[in-house]
């Protein structure tokens, strides 16, 4: 199809309104894979969009491409969790293996392009690589070849999630996670295998896809609930084990002799556990204990019924008490009372700043204007966080219910979900849920036969972190570049299209129905003086058990790390927790007894932020972390104000010089001064908080910064300050020599190998491959 007819087709679908510019560009790019200027020109011809607008907007968002790319896009996650687990090396490896040309960003055969993206929302499986829709977790730089090969043969099959069938006459229900992490962990293969086994043995079981269970780094996760209501959970299930596991719990209905024999065999194998392949060879009780420890310290409000609800089933949500809160609001309450309940509950915004939710609703309620809007902020751009993604994927109805209640209370008639571009699954789930809500009359006109009408639509972001900031988000919705402006005017007074607009975070809204159902005291009694209820965190990094956790406010960081996360991996030492993402800071282990509380965290120089919590150990360098976050904020700056646009560049330059051992003590002082100017002088939260990672670093780890001026990186992380070395354990197995992509290690069987430092690119391959742990990283000066 030629370009103009593609554009015509899209515009037919979307309309000519300039507000639709992002949607139009997305749809055109979906069809053409990039945005040729001919397409842009034709869009201007057939819509009311001006050439200035389309140029400004299409170059503002990272999603849009103005050059053709390879057929498949390899997305390499550059999120926090992936970064600490070594994603820069992965990126190098793919570029090398595919011979990607940096200028053209495509492999010579035009098959692949590489894109570094912020968190793909599967941090617990870090580092993550996604090719088209297919996700690979725990990737090692040495696997680049293998992954491309796998992708090319298996292709990109779509995920088929079977509808859960209600059928009470069954022997067991098999629950399998279909959250992003689980899918990345291979749950769709498991699903189809379960179906195979079910057919093969004619098992009387029900297969039920469920949302995120929270133990995302143990995926895929499978739970079997038998008729007798006995729950058995299996983590990291392998395809080959499905048959064994199923047959252990469920008896086949009709068996012919031959198969029966083989089953007995299998069951025996299973009972003796050891014979089982893969990772499931831990006794069931132990596995249970493991999971329960992880889940027991948590309190579930936003994530209530996790692992039980089918995310897309309206009926199940209702059966579990869903939409009762909405009914109660509409039938038994009035706007002012609802706002009072929310205010009295002490609920504060979970989007970062912690603004009292009841107060915000009150302002929106009192503002005059028609129509009023409610926006659910699901732009979650913090590169180490995925709570909102999980809530939208697993509990879309809960968030929608919260939004409808917010709309009812503030007098709004329209709701908009602003969902991040990288979350296609969340978009699908919310879309299905909205549709079901309309079918069941909880959305639309005269909800529950009242005079209240409420309509909801979805807007997909196009890849700009700054659009999480509410005024930028609104600009973006209006079809402009997503640049923030000074408040006041607050959106609650003058927001989308100049109308009163309530902007709330996904998690904030998801707590609302609970408060209405259980009462304001229930929430208020939980937490600290000023921070009430629970907070969902994405726990990742160097932690034994990561995942999505919901904990009561007032819990200490140490409890989270040690009890829930079961401490740091590989017996390394716990060094710090990075909390609040690029706006937050690093809290040192010595301050781990700090309570999770908005004010307490701010006092330390960090902030609650959206809820990314990345655990760091002694192999993480604080200067490198600061550089990582600054690189992110600098790249995500909208470029409007001087301090953020230029100031962060100077900060980044100094930090980079530090990681290269080229900075002086005086530079550190300059950096500190600059940080304060950028904090004071930036227009929006992005710039104002961007110095936090550096300032907390300087506050708690100053000696590490100073060491870098002498060329020492104690974590052996900064590439310019380290070298690879072969120690005496080398047996001369030659593996490293074969694996080295640049032939820096001469092939010398049975002799101690040596690395030519001038050739070595520090790709880490040799260290990964060496069976003797003979390759070590040492300081370049040592």
């Amino acid at each position, binding site marked *: 199809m030629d370009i103009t007819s593609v554009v015509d087709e899209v515009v037919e679908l979307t309309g000519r309104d300039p507000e639709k510019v992002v949607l139009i560009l997305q749809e055109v790019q979906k069809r053409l894979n990039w945005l040729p*200027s001919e397409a*842009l*020109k034709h869009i*201007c011809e057939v819509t*009311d969009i*001006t*050439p*200035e*607008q*389309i*140029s*400004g907007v*299409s*170059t*503002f*968002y*990272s999603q849009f491409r*103005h050059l053709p790319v390879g057929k498949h896009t390899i997305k390499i996650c550059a999120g926090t969790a992936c970064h600490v687990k070594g994603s820069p090396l992965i990126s190098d490896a793919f570029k090398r293996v595919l011979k990607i040309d940096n200028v053209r960003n495509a492999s010579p055969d035009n098959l692949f392009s590489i894109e570094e993206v912020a968190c793909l929302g599967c941090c617990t499986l870090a580092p993550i690589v996604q090719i088209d829709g297919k996700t690979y977790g725990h990737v090692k730089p040495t696997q680049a070849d293998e992954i491309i090969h796998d992708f090319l043969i298996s292709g990109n099959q779509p995920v088929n999630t079977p509808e859960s069938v209600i059928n009470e006459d069954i022997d067991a229900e098999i629950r399998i996670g279909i959250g992003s992490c689980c899918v990345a962990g291979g749950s769709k293969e498991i699903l189809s295998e379960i179906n195979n086994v079910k057919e093969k043995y004619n098992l009387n079981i029900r297969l039920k896809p469920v949302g995120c269970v929270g133990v995302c780094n143990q995926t895929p996760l499978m739970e079997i609930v038998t008729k007798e209501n006995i729950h058995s959970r299996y983590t990291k299930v392998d395809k080959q084990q499905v048959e064994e596991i199923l047959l252990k719990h469920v008896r086949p209905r009709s068996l012919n002799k031959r198969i029966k024999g083989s089953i007995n065999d299998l069951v025996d194998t299973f009972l003796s556990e050891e014979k089982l392949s893969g990772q499931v060879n831990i006794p069931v009780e132990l596995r249970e204990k493991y999971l329960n420890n992880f889940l027991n310290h948590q309190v579930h409000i936003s994530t209530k019924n996790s692992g039980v609800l089918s995310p897309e089933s309206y009926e199940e949500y209702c059966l579990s008490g869903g939409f009762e809160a909405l009914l109660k609001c509409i039938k038994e309450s009035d706007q002012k009372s609802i706002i009072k309940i929310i205010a009295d509950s002490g609920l504060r915004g979970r989007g970062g700043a912690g603004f009292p939710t009841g107060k915000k609703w009150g302002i929106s309620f009192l503002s005059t204007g028609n129509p009023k809007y409610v926006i659910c902020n699901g732009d979650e751009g913090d590169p180490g966080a995925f709570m909102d993604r999980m809530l939208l994927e697993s509990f879309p109805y809960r968030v929608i219910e919260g939004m409808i209640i917010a709309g009812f209370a503030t007098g709004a008639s329209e709701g908009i979900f602003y969902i991040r571009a990288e979350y296609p699954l969340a978009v699908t789930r919310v879309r299905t849920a909205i549709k079901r809500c309309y079918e069941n009359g909880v959305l639309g006109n005269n909800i529950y036969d009242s005079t209240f009408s409420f309509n909801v639509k979805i807007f997909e972001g196009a890849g*700009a972190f700054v659009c999480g900031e509410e005024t930028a988000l609104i600009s973006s919705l209006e079809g402009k*570049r997503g640049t923030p*402006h*000074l408040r*006041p*005017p607050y959106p609650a007074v003058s927001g989308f299209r100049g109308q009163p607009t309530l902007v709330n975070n996904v998690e904030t809204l998801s707590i609302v129905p609970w408060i209405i159902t259980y009462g304001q005291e229930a929430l208020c009694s939980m937490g600290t003086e000023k921070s009430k209820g629970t907070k969902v965190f994405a726990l990742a990094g160097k932690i034994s058990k990561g995942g999505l956790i919901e904990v009561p406010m007032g819990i200490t960081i140490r409890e989270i790390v040690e009890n829930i996360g079961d401490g740091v991996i590989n017996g390394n030492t716990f060094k710090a927790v990075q909390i609040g993402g690029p706006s937050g800071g690093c809290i040192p282990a010595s301050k781990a007894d700090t309570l999770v509380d908005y004010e307490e965290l701010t006092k330390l120089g960090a902030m609650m932020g959206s809820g990314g919590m990345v655990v760091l150990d002694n192999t993480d360098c604080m200067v490198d972390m600061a550089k990582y976050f600054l690189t992110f904020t*600098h*790249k*995500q*700056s*909208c*470029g*409007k*104000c*001087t*301090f953020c*646009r*230029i*100031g*962060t*560049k*100077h900060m980044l*330059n100094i930090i980079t010089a530090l990681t290269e051992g080229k900075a002086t003590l005086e530079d550190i002082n300059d950096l500190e001064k600059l940080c304060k*100017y950028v904090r*004071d*002088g*930036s*227009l929006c939260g992005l710039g104002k908080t961007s110095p936090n990672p550096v300032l907390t670093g300087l506050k708690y780890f100053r000696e590490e910064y100073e060491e870098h001026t002498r060329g020492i990186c104690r974590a052996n992380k900064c590439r310019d300050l380290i070298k690879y070395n072969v120690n005496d354990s080398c047996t001369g197995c030659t593996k490293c020599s074969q694996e080295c992509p640049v032939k820096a290690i001469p092939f010398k069987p049975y002799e101690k190998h040596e690395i030519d430092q001038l050739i070595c690119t520090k790709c880490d391959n040799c260290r990964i491959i060496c069976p003797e742990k003979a390759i070590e990283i040492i300081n370049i000066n040592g």
Partner: protein
Amino acid sequence: MVKLKIDNADFEVKEGLTILDIAIGAGIKIPTLCNNKNFPHYSSCMVCMVKDQKKENFLPSCSALAQDGMDIDCSSDEVKSLRRESIELLLSEHRAECEAPCKVVCPGGYNIPLMNRLLSAKDFNTAVQLSIAQIQSSGLKCKDCPGYCENACRRKKVDTPVSIKNLQIFVSQQIKMENRVAGQHNIKKSSKRFASHIGKIEADELQEWLKECKNVIKRVREISDSDSAAMESESCMHCDCRAADNCRLRDIADEFSIKDPRGKIVNSPIQKKININTGLIFENAKCIKCGLCVRLCENSKEEPGLCFINRGFVSIISEPLTEDFNDILKTKSQEVIDICPTGALSLKTHQPPIWGA
């Protein structure tokens, strides 16, 4: 009505005013760059910062609305140092020169590029007037000078320096008695002004200056007549800024006695875009991204104008992706030039006032 304090004085004003509005009314001086009363406020330059003493935070006064009970500080050292930092940051990516290198090194401060332009335009009368004024005010004659100018001439990096010395001598030889008596023009000895520098120029970037001298036919060393003078002067690359005497950024840098920051950072290679239809020139490295030109061009479907391209540090002013620079701003060129606070937008034919501001 809103009651607030600004610099310890009480104000009672109607709602909806910005702090800058009130300050201007009260004669309190706040520097601004990106603000223009004809457009909705935007706040990008951040040189108009003030401090909210109660909240302990800083606000751009051009868009901060006056609110009841505010206590605003416009004049403390703290506020001034933040403003100063914003200007220094803007200058740190300002890879541009207010004055041409030849003029800077000339012991007599001769306005060499101007002379070259007069010659290439064959305006010999004015050229002679300029020469008289230069000699009179400095007491210096080119024939007594080793020719520092040619050593500094940027053209030298491309091929050979402009034959500045010979050009100047040629003009001075044309001075006749009667002209000398007149001596109507006196160049005001300008006090030492702020001068921005470029820093390192890449080879590709150097080519951009050649766009200023498209008509060079032949280079001449010996200047014997007006034709050879016109021919050689054509090779001058117009290194001085067309806004040298009319630049808000330079003025503010002077006000704050700022020295040009060392170590300039590069956000995009230097470019000179010249619109062949209107003579509009856009020089990206001089742009401070204030967005005034963009706001002026908004909503003009009939006449494509300027817009922002890209995000963040690398964002830049440009013609729309779908248009050619030669086809934009057919009627509005002068308007965007007038609104631009710097020399980023100017007219090819523009001459800074000849006898100095």
